[in-house]
């Protein structure tokens, strides 16, 4: 009771004390809250701009939008190289803590090859931390699904859509268009990096390489909002990319296809050029390969198969293969004889089967025992009389010879719009001086006169020379680019390829003489290509060539007439153009292994010309002559009839001379 009273008594003082303390406490609290607010004022008012910038930096990232690569068409608008949507895995290194550990975990979800990882790591080193680097291209739907489920485990890894290249006709255009493949670290050194931001592929060879600049276009940019994991949430602003230009090739795929089919898988090359402008209408190298394999990284198994195949499918024979031209050079030499005033058309030579340099025991043979008798220039071309050209070459001398032949492009690059062309060998004093200390021997001039000896030409050079002659001597750079186009709806812009010089023909009559000889090859009934003109609506002019792969060990004539045996020893060449009076197409066909130029390569040239007639709107020519060489429609390739028809006569063209071992070409 007393205690209660006591507490009551004190209550008033205690209440007053509490009241003071409560006020003091509240004042302190207000002070504390003010201190906190002051801090917020400091952050939100005085440092607002700085934090706004950092917040924007956090969330807004510039991202490159790669341009769509230009499409490639043939001259008639057939789509050859296309862009199709695909998905790839991309990694932003900034977002990944332990890269190796992440890759190991990711590998369990989506299989990643060692090649991919090597390329990826190289590229990571070269790019900025916040830029996405492709890890695996062309994901399958299954892989996309499996990654999507596990995505949360992999911050900084994304599935990104992109456009990948597809070559609609696959192997057919492989040696023309080439292919694109993944940009590697070396490429990044070579190109303007800003232009390739976000781009994963670059033209590797072929048209894709030589017109990379046109096809690529320019990247655009977008500002994207990302979250803390770096995943895009929204696009804030976009500067669209400039797509690459579309390219129309000079190639006519119908002709290309006919040429490839006519080759029937035999190693070699076939090229057709329009002599009026240098446009390459067909450009075939056999064997070929599927360029689509390379686009998203070729598997090492596939790659090994391609590189170790004995017939080397990756090797562009049309562009880089070199072969002795054999008798196909004879028309050009003949024209040189006329132009240089060394021969008149009527001048004759007696072919006895053997030509010996006066005062020397060494002799050079004709193809036929006993020779062709007395021949003028037209006959010499028609029958491919070696003695005529031995003499002409000797009279011309090696210096004038190589100068003249050089004008047709032999011994130098044609300048075609493909990368990797080789020069081949035009026999000359200068060329020999780089190889050997011994001087030039007259005998070397003689065999050069029949396209043997040091000679090495690419099929493209041969086609180019043929087209130059057919176009009445006006030289054009052979080219594959026809038109460019800014987007599919824009008009096609023709690219100018003017002649590179004046005509090589001095007098029209000179051309007429050589042309007459080449017409006779096909049409006289006695020429080496006499079976090739039947049923064709125009006159064809041509010249065969059969070059020896190995030097002869004896002077004896080869009595083995088996074509399969001869094919292992000979290279078969054929050049032709038509219509002979107004040439519109020139072709060159080279078979690495063919018994005879006219019998093996000739029909291929004819089939190309047949297709050309069809493409020009004509009926497909049908050869009606029995026992004659038949055209593409009538018979499958390598029919026995063809071979048996050759059996009867001794083909008058194998340049049977002693030749130095020939450069096999493929090593270039």
């Amino acid at each position: 009771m007393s205690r209660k009273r006591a507490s009551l008594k004190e209550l008033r003082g205690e209440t007053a004390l509490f009241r003071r303390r409560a006020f003091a406490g509240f004042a302190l609290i207000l002070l504390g809250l003010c201190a906190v607010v002051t801090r917020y004022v400091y952050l939100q008012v005085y440092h607002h701009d700085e934090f706004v910038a950092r917040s924007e930096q956090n969330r807004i990232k510039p991202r490159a939008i790669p341009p769509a690569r230009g499409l490639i068409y043939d001259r008639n608008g057939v789509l050859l190289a296309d862009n199709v949507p695909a998905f790839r895995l991309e990694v932003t290194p900034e977002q990944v803590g332990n890269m190796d550990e992440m890759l190991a975990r990711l590998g369990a979800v989506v299989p990643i090859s060692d090649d991919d990882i090597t390329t990826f790591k190289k590229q990571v080193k070269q790019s900025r931390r916040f830029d996405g680097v492709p890890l695996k291209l062309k994901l399958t739907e299954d892989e996309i699904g499996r990654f999507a489920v596990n995505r949360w485990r992999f911050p900084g890894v994304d599935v990104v859509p992109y456009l990948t290249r597809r070559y609609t006709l696959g192997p057919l255009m492989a040696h023309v268009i080439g292919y694109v493949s993944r940009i590697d670290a070396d490429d990044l050194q070579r190109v303007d990096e800003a232009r390739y931001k976000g781009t994963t592929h670059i033209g590797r060879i072929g048209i894709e390489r030589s017109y990379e600049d046109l096809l690529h276009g320019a990247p655009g940019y977008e500002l994207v909002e990302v979250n803390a994991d770096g995943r895009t949430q929204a696009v804030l602003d976009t500067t669209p990319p400039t797509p690459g230009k579309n390219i129309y090739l000079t190639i006519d795929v119908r002709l290309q296809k006919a040429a490839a089919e006519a080759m029937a898988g035999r190693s070699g090359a076939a090229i057709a050029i329009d002599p009026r402008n240098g446009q390459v209408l067909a450009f075939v190298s056999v064997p070929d390969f599927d360029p689509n394999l390379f686009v998203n990284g070729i598997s090492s198994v596939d790659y090994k198969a391609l590189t170790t195949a004995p017939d080397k499918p990756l090797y562009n024979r049309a562009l880089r293969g070199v072969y002795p031209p054999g008798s196909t050079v004879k028309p050009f030499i003949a024209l040189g004889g006329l132009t240089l005033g060394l021969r008149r058309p009527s001048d004759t030579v007696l072919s006895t089967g053997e030509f010996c340099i006066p005062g020397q025991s060494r002799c050079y043979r004709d193809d036929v025992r006993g020779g062709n008798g007395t021949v003028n220039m037209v006959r010499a071309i028609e029958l491919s009389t070696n003695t005529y050209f031995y003499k002409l070459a000797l009279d011309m001398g090696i210096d004038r010879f190589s100068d003249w032949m050089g004008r047709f492009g032999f011994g130098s690059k044609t300048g075609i719009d493909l990368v990797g062309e080789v020069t081949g060998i035009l026999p000359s004093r200068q060329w020999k001086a780089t190889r050997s200390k011994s001087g030039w021997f007259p005998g070397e001039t003689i065999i050069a006169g029949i396209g043997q000896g040091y000679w090495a030409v690419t099929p493209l050079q041969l086609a180019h020379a043929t087209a130059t002659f057919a176009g009445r001597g006006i030289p054009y750079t052979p080219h594959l680019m026809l038109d460019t186009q800014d987007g599919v709806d824009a008009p096609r812009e023709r690219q100018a390829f003017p002649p590179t010089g004046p005509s090589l023909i001095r007098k029209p009559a000179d051309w007429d003489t050589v042309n007459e000889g080449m017409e006779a090859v096909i049409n006289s009934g006695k020429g080496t290509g006499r079976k090739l003109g039947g049923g064709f609506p125009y006159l064809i002019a041509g010249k065969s060539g059969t070059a020896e792969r190995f030097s002869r060990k004896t002077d004896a004539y080869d009595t083995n007439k088996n074509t399969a045996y001869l094919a292992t020893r000979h290279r078969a060449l054929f050049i032709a153009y038509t219509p002979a009076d107004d040439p519109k197409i020139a072709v060159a066909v080279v078979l690495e292994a063919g018994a005879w130029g006219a019998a093996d390569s000739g029909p291929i040239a004819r089939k190309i010309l047949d297709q050309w007639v069809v493409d020009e709107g004509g009926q497909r020519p049908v050869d009606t002559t029995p026992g004659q060489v038949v055209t593409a429609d009538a018979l499958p390739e390598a029919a026995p009839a063809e071979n048996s028809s050759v059996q009867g006569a001794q083909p008058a063209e194998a340049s049977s001379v002693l030749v130095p071992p020939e450069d096999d070409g493929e090593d270039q």
Partner: protein
Amino acid sequence: MIEQLSVRLKRFGLRLLTRPRLDLPLLLALIVLAGAGLSTLYSAGGGNYSLVGGQAARFVLGGVLMVIISRIPPPVLRSWTPWLYAGSTALLLVVAVLGEGRGAYRWLDLGVMRFQPSELLKLTMPMMVAWYLHPRQLPPSWKDIIVVGLLIAVPAGLIAEQPDLGTALLVAGAGAFALFLSGMAWWRIGLLVGSAAAAVPVAWQFLHEYQRNRVRTLLDPESDPLGNGWHIIQSKIAVGSGGMFGKGWQHGTQSRLDFLPEHTTDFIFAVFSEEFGLVGVIAIMVLYAFIIGRCLWIAMNARDTYSRLLAGAIGMSFFVYVAVNGGMVAGILPVVGVPMPLVSYGGTSAVSLLTGFGVLMSIHANRKLHDSA
């Protein structure tokens, strides 16, 4: 006996419904605060209704507890106090024993729900201090101060040992505020605070390494921008980029894009600051100040010492929440697990806070006679 009990329960329930006797201004302020908290949570959670719904359910549960407790007269609470304090401290010991050898162990699994005994101390601590000082001559003597100090130190030490520095701070604060309000002489306060400051280097030795790192990071967050500094840097960016008027509700990029960690719980105030700017911050601080002020007003009008000290301490410890969380979000205090009261997502804190306000309501209902007249 049972009938008697059921009749009493029925009468109690009836009174609850018909005459809640709650302090309307405080209740309104709490509702406004809870509303602001829920809308911020909605935005911070990316429009997730289940998150908001869960939190609202806890508010309802807390509100029910508040109403029930508001019907328990303070003398009854006072008579329960030693048992509640002893019980909750015992639970802390149980947790400490169970948690032996584990990293951080704070939870007691009751099967249906997990629950932190330390949360109880937020309320039983000021109750105990008030209970002890209630019959004493005030201002307290050194002897009383030492006893109160021990009453505070034992549970606070156990909590700090868990380790949960934030809750330890809140619990110790609540007890200390009761002592402060009891009229402890200023020079004694000065002496204690001074010696506490002097003990900081000693206390540093007893901190866990991760706690020290938090302090170190606070002093220089940019030294470890991807590790310990990440929270502070991103929180400061969120606050600073909010500016004067904020980016607008649901337009805070820092939280929406996940740059801001813990943006529904400990760092939700950064989201609020980002979206509502300085204006919003000041508004919510005024609201908090009003709530604290109202608590102190209720305390001043309380009938006895126990009620006064308890109501005042609960109100003032509310300030600790706000200052510690607000300071942490703004990068001036280390990262400790103290939520922004009634704004941060999290069940235990909301329920225990509202229970505390239930006590306040009860004290208000049983205020001095001359005031109610």
